[in-house]
């Protein structure tokens, strides 16, 4: 029986934890299996949950968020028979029973950035992040590169919601930021801000401009108003890990990018009319080139800086 440990944001964070939850639910429904889960409430519970689940025989133990990776690396050594999987984390040395899954968010963001630039009439696009942390800059940086690749002179307005945990759950502030960006000319806004993003998408729909969702497919929230969503298939990763069960291949890290369909952009009936064939063609072309290595999207992580936007 697998176990799933969510990061501090909780499983209803409108972001990758919720995606993980969705993946697990889908797995449970498809296989009829059951899994154990915990939403930790404090830093100290990370290690506690890992050990308790491992001791109780859950296998594999799947975790989300980079913050748990380090302690997971240490705990894993004490439980060689248990497999540990982490989404988003990084470890310099990976123990044999650990699998690290990370996503090339910048690539997905690059593609939605291209779409944003193509859809924009004002040549001004917005980005709203939850908090000024490297992960969010990473999203924003890929997005900015995508925008600039289509319209080198386009203006990018970026805002971060705040510095306290409330920053991820303040849709009202998200709305106001969106309005502020709209009044500065933005007509497409990409939100990477958890629950705050709900407000961004809402306001964009109300004000009749386009928005871009994040992590999971949020197109359905406002049909015809959400240009697309940057998909980060945490749900797939979790689904696959649970499906593989105790036999999952570990001792390595896996990077899921465009090539692996780990990231992407959402196309469905809700946004079919928003994406012209030209737009799709251009994006598909870029996607192929990125996979082929012809276009290199710079990751903010590489040297903590972004070529397309000065955070």
């Amino acid at each position: 029986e697998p176990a799933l440990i969510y990061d501090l944001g909780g499983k209803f964070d409108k972001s990758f934890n919720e995606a993980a939850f969705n993946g697990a639910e889908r797995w449970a429904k498809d296989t009829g299996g059951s899994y154990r889960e915990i939403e930790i409430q404090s830093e100290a519970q990370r290690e506690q949950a890992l050990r308790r689940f491992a001791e109780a025989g859950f296998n594999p133990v799947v975790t989300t968020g980079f913050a748990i990776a380090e302690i997971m690396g240490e705990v894993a050594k004490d439980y060689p028979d248990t497999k540990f999987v982490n989404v988003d984390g990084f470890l310099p040395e990976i123990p044999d029973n650990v699998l690290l899954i990370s996503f090339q968010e910048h690539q997905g963001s690059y593609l939605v950035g291209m779409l944003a630039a193509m859809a924009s009439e004002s040549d001004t696009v917005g980005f709203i992040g939850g908090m000024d942390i490297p992960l969010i800059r990473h999203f924003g940086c890929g997005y900015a590169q995508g925008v600039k690749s289509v319209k080198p002179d386009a203006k990018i307005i970026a805002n971060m919601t705040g510095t306290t945990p409330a920053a991820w759950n303040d849709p009202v502030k998200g709305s106001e930021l969106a309005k502020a960006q709209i009044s500065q000319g933005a007509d497409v806004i990409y939100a990477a801000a958890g629950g705050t993003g709900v407000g961004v998408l809402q306001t964009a729909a109300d004000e009749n401009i386009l928005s871009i969702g994040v992590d999971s497919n949020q197109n359905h929230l406002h049909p015809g108003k959400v240009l697309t969503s940057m998909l980060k298939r945490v749900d797939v990763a979790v689904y696959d890990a649970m499906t593989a069960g105790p036999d999952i291949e570990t001792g390595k890290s896996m990077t899921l990018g465009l090539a692996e369909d780990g990231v992407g952009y959402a196309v469905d009936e809700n946004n079919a009319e928003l994406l012209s064939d030209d737009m799709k063609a251009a994006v598909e072309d870029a996607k192929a080139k990125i996979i082929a290595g012809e276009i290199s999207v710079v990751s903010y992580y590489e040297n903590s800086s972004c070529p397309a936007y000065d955070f």
Partner: protein
Amino acid sequence: MEVMPKWADVVLVPLISLVLAMIISALVILGIGEDPWAALKLMVQGALGSPYGWGYTLYYATNFIFTGLAVSVAFHAAMFNIGGEGQATLGGLGVALVCLALPWPHWALALPAATLGAALFGAAWAAIPAYLAAKRGSHIVITTIMFNFIGAAVLNYMLVNVLRPPSSMDPASAKFPDGTALPSFHDMFSPIIAFPKSVPANISFLIALVACLVVWLLIWRTRFGFELRAFGKSESAAVYAGISPTKIIMGSMLISGALAGMMAINTVQGEAGRLVLNSVEGAGFIGIAVALMGRSHPAGVLIAAILFGFLYQGGAELALWMSIPRELVVVIQGLVILFTGALDNMVRMPIERVFLWRRRSRQAAGE
């Protein structure tokens, strides 16, 4: 003359209140379709039934002792310091800067230095609101609320732009040198009590206990404490007695801030070994509830802090084994605060009547 014997007031009333809170919690648990009896057993077993449980319960309690004492000290001077969150945040920064500054050879050296760093930074974060309150009459509640937000921004900036090792994408400081690692309960008590290696409770708990004693001495046995309480009870009388309001406001708030800051040695140095975003996790606000419930007395704070530690660890066990949403734990915490802290008279009044009646009938019999 008191109506009730002290034990009834100190033990019986809180106990019945707690039971009431538990009954309502049980109804909520029933409401979401789980078994309340099993949940209760799990909480008690998981939090108090083993060294493992105690190792976590006391870890959380340590945080709440520090922040609870912080609120209490200020409270005695009639200062409502809601800035514990921000002061503890800055305390964490202090600990991190100290721990990262030198290749500390041994924790026995690092601990006093880090404690000093935590206290200094926490006190510094309380100093501006205190100064404004003393000199400009600014309301301490507003300024400390504002400083909570500002503190969060400072920490965010420091972690993202200054303390984060270039190679790491995690908004957190580098790992502290090994020499700063504090002895955990496992290291400290291993031959006598078998705390598992992983429990986060550490020597900071003992420091917290010492802090309780020191605060008790400070408030009730020193001249400064005497003056502080006098000022808190009656500013006009304090002025008559020649007690300087500035001295008391500044002194009490600096001590309060220092205590809140010291919480960081438990979380930042003791548990995490590095500084992360939001390492305070609301303990500053819990400190308010702890201080109020503990009637601003160190002994009361200690008990209330352990109660909250129990709720945290018990809640974690619930979350681990019963797939109970963490919001339920928050609800239980709210109910416990409500019943033991705010609705205590609902229990006390009838009990008082019983005691009064017994006393009267005994007097009547005696006459």
